[in-house]
Each structure stands twice: as structure tokens, then as C-alpha cells.
């Protein structure tokens, strides 16, 4: 990837992030923070590549810790975000679910 293309990606992604979040209601601040916390768990991919190319014991040790931490970020971020969002239901959806139960 050439430097200038990488910069274009960087700029467009920055605008995208801003636009996606711009109109979010306060009630979703906590889940959304947790969700974006999950998304940067993509660092797992980089940590895997880093460990996959490590050769000296020092590199392997640091790489191993990196993958361990990154997997924690991705999996933990998913677990708590999913739990929180699972609970967001409107009264209509709730009444429907209750009706199906009976």
C-alpha cells in the first residue's frame, strides 16, 4: 500500500467514524462506547501477524502477550456489548414477546 493511498483511507475512515456517531442519543452512549471498544479488537489480526512473524524468544514472548491481550479485547468487548444491547427493547416488542410466551 503506498503512503498516499493509506492517507486517503485514513481521512475517509475518520469522516466515516464521525458521521456514524454524530446523531447518537445519550441512552446509547455506554453501549456504543463498548461497541467501538469491540471494533478496535481488530488489533487481534495485527497481533497474530506479529506473532506469526516473530523469531527470537523476546519477539515471541511479546507477540504472545499481544495476541492474548487482543483476543481479550475482542471477545470481552463482544460479550459485554451483546449483553447490554440484548436488553434494549421497546414496549411494543416486549408486549409481543410476552404474548408469544402465553
Amino acid at each position, binding site marked *: *500500500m503506498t503512503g498516499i493511498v493509506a492517507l486517503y*483511507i*485514513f481521512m475517509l*475512515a*475518520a*469522516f*466515516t*467514524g464521525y458521521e*456514524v*456517531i454524530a446523531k447518537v442519543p*445519550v*441512552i*446509547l*452512549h*455506554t453501549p*456504543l*462506547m*463498548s*461497541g*467501538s*471498544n*469491540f*471494533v*478496535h*479488537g*481488530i*488489533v*487481534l*489480526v*495485527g*497481533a*497474530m*501477524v*506479529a*506473532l*506469526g*512473524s516473530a523469531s527470537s524468544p523476546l*519477539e515471541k514472548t*511479546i*507477540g504472545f502477550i*499481544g*495476541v*492474548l491481550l*487482543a*483476543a*481479550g*479485547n*475482542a*471477545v*470481552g468487548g*463482544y*460479550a*459485554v456489548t451483546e*449483553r447490554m*444491547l440484548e*436488553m*434494549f427493547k*421497546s*414496549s*411494543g416488542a416486549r408486549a409481543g414477546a410476552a404474548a408469544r410466551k402465553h
Partner: protein
Amino acid sequence: MPDYLLSAAALIQVSYLVTAFLFIMGLKRMSSPVTARSGILWAGAGMLVATLATFFYPGMTNYPLIVIAVVIGGAIAWISGRRVAMTNIPQMIALYNGMGGGAAAAIAAVELYRGGQMSNSEATLAVIGGLIGAVSFSGSLIAFGKLQGLIRKSLRFRGQQLLNLLILAGAIVCGALIAAGINDSAAVVTGLFALSLLLGLSMTLPIGGADMPVVISLYNALTGLAVAFEGFVLGNAAMIIAGTVVGSAGTLLTQLMARAMNRSLGNVLFSGFGDTGGTAASGGAVSGSLKPIDAADVGVMMAFAQKVIIVPGYGMAVAQAQHKVWELCQLLIDRGVTVRFAIHPVAGRMPGHMNVLLAEAGVPYDLIADLDEINSEFETADVALIIGANDVVNPVARNDKSSPIYGMPILNADKAKNVVVIKRGQGAGFSGIENALFYLDNTRMLYGDGQAAVAQLIAAVKAV
């Protein structure tokens, strides 16, 4: 079909593209309550695609180590994430975020310790990403410790800002030596990471617990940036896009949170007000007396009301009373009473946290209103029931310039025809400021533990 489309490298690039698409769509869906639930599934699918594809990355070795690390890290995080109580979610976000920052720093460390193969611009990006990632790692761990109650004191001394500046300068010098190729020995690399980790500690220790949500949000954005920088080093488009999206979205979210809490970001990071309220004292005497009331009377009052507004605070969550509160509301709704929940932006531990806690108890989100929506409705409410909230309904924020909370937007609970406050005892609130609301003519105090008091109210409404 041309050969290049079938090569492993091209397949990986395509799957990263799919991942970037799924992440952005997922975040977009997460920003509306109607679609939020599916948003995390989209993003989760993206993560799965990218992780599986990376196993086929050309030239990879150390597969057993990778699998072991993924399984151990993933299993511990999964179990802790499923088990944590909803009241403790903010510190878990801090912890997982710190892990991400640490991982970004680890990538930088592997690349920099190896040395020799990077161009100056790549080394510069690796250094910046490593510095930010390490700060986010140690800073997030301190934030976790503070919210979890492991670290109780806020360390403050004269010249603290200067010391932080010196540590930062030291880290930058190390980073510049490496990036310029003057000295990229292991000692300098170690110095860079040691100073960066120290900076995260010394920046976060002085910040009070009340400001932690804003700080966690900031570190979340920083981790995103660190991931993006390491993505540049590895030439990994998925990391660049996801990291940058989180970096900019996180920065905006940090600003929104700071605004919701009536603080500026600079104020949070450099002034250390967070938990000083207690020393700032009263600010004007309050006249009048506290007027107690029985649960039976409140039950009658609420059962025959047209409209009841519940104002919950973190105290309600601590008393685990939210399930009982919802049970009470359902009884009232069945009697034809209009019930709404009024949520102040700083109710709970971070903006939106109270909504999560109410959602856990089963309250539908369309009964929950935030400050701007609900404030004009208090005048038409027959009863405002305050449970576990204090400073956010204190009218002195409107009119007493000497008060430390002057200027903070509050819920206008005092405008309701009757105000009932459930309170454990007669002490002042989190900030140590007397609450003028409690002394108003239309206010009655229902003393007792949150959960027990609401249970009494349920019995009283049933008896009507």
C-alpha cells in the same frame, strides 16, 4: 477467472474489505435503539471473518502459540464478560480497552525490537502507535482500578503537570532516536515503552472517579488510533479503517460525554475536580424542614395520579432496586397511570449507563426520557419519585451562583405537584452539597433502603 483473485493474499484482502464494511454498518446500526441489537452481530461477524482469514496469511509461523493465546485470552474475557454485573460494566470496558491498547503496543514492540527492516516513516508510525497504545494500556488499568474500588486515593501534588510533560518529552526523545535511525538499540526501545507506560499511570492517577467515564472514552479513542498506526506499519487495511473509525467516533463520543457532564475535556484531564466537591462545602444555607411521609400515603398518592415521573440515580442501582421499581411502575400502568423515567446524563456511572441498568430490569426504552425531553413535563406530573438521585435534582444549580454545581443542567423535579424522595438517611449527596429540593413545601421524604422502600410502595399500591 484470473489467477490473482484466487491467491491467498487476495482472498485475505477481500475478507478485510468485507470486515471493514461489516464494522461500519454495525456501528451505524448501534447508534439507534431500534437496530442496536443487530449492530453488534454485524460487527461480530466482521471480526470472525478477519480472524479466520488471518490464519491463511502468507508466511505465518508459530501457529500453536497463536491458537493457545487466542483461546486463553478469549476464554478469560468471555467468562468475565458474561458474569460481570451490569453496575460494573464501565470498568470492564476500561479493562478490555486497556488490553487492546496493550496489544497495539506489543505489535510495535515486536517490530521495533526486531529492528533494521523498517523505513523511517514506518518506524515513526510504529513508535507513535506504540506510545499511544502503552499510555492507553496503563491508563485504562488505573481507570479500571479506580472504578472497581481497588485504588481509592487520587494522587495529586504540585508540579504534576510538569512531571507528566517531562515524561512525555523523554518518551518522544526515545521515539525520535528510533524513528530517525540514530539509535534503535533494545535499550532505547525499552526506554520508550517504560516511559509511555509511566505516562499513562501518572496522567490517570490524579483524575477523580466521577470523571473516569470521560477518561475511559478518551483512552478508547486513543486505542483506536494506536491500532490504526500499527495497521499502517503492517500494511493492514482492516486495522487502519477500523482503528481510525473508532479513533474519530471515540473522540466525538468523548466530547459528547464531557458536554453531557457539563465538563470540558481539558478540565477533566488537568484540573482534577472529579471528587473535590466534598471540600467545596455548602454554598448558601437552606431554609425549611424535612417532612417525612409513610409508604401507605405515597402509594395512594401514586395510585390516583395521572402522571408519575421516576427519577432514578446510581443509588437505586447500588440498592439493586431497579427490578422492584419496574414492578411498581407496571402496577401503576395497569391502573392507567402514565409513567415515565427521567434520566439525567450523569445518572449512573457514565452517560447511558442508567438506561442499561433499567433495560436489564425490563423497562422498555420508550418509557425512558432524557433531560431535554422530560424537563417540560414535570409541570404536568402529579408525582415525581426521586430514588437514589440527589445533585441532579438540586435546584440550587439553577439559581445559586456560589454553589459548586451552579450551571449544571438539572431535572426540574421541583416543578412537579408532589415530590417524593426515597432516601436512606439525612446526609448530603455525592458532592456533599445540601439539596434545596428536599426542603420545599411540596416535597416529602420516604426514609429507608431503596429496595425495601419500593417494596412497601408496591404493597401500598396493591392495597388501594
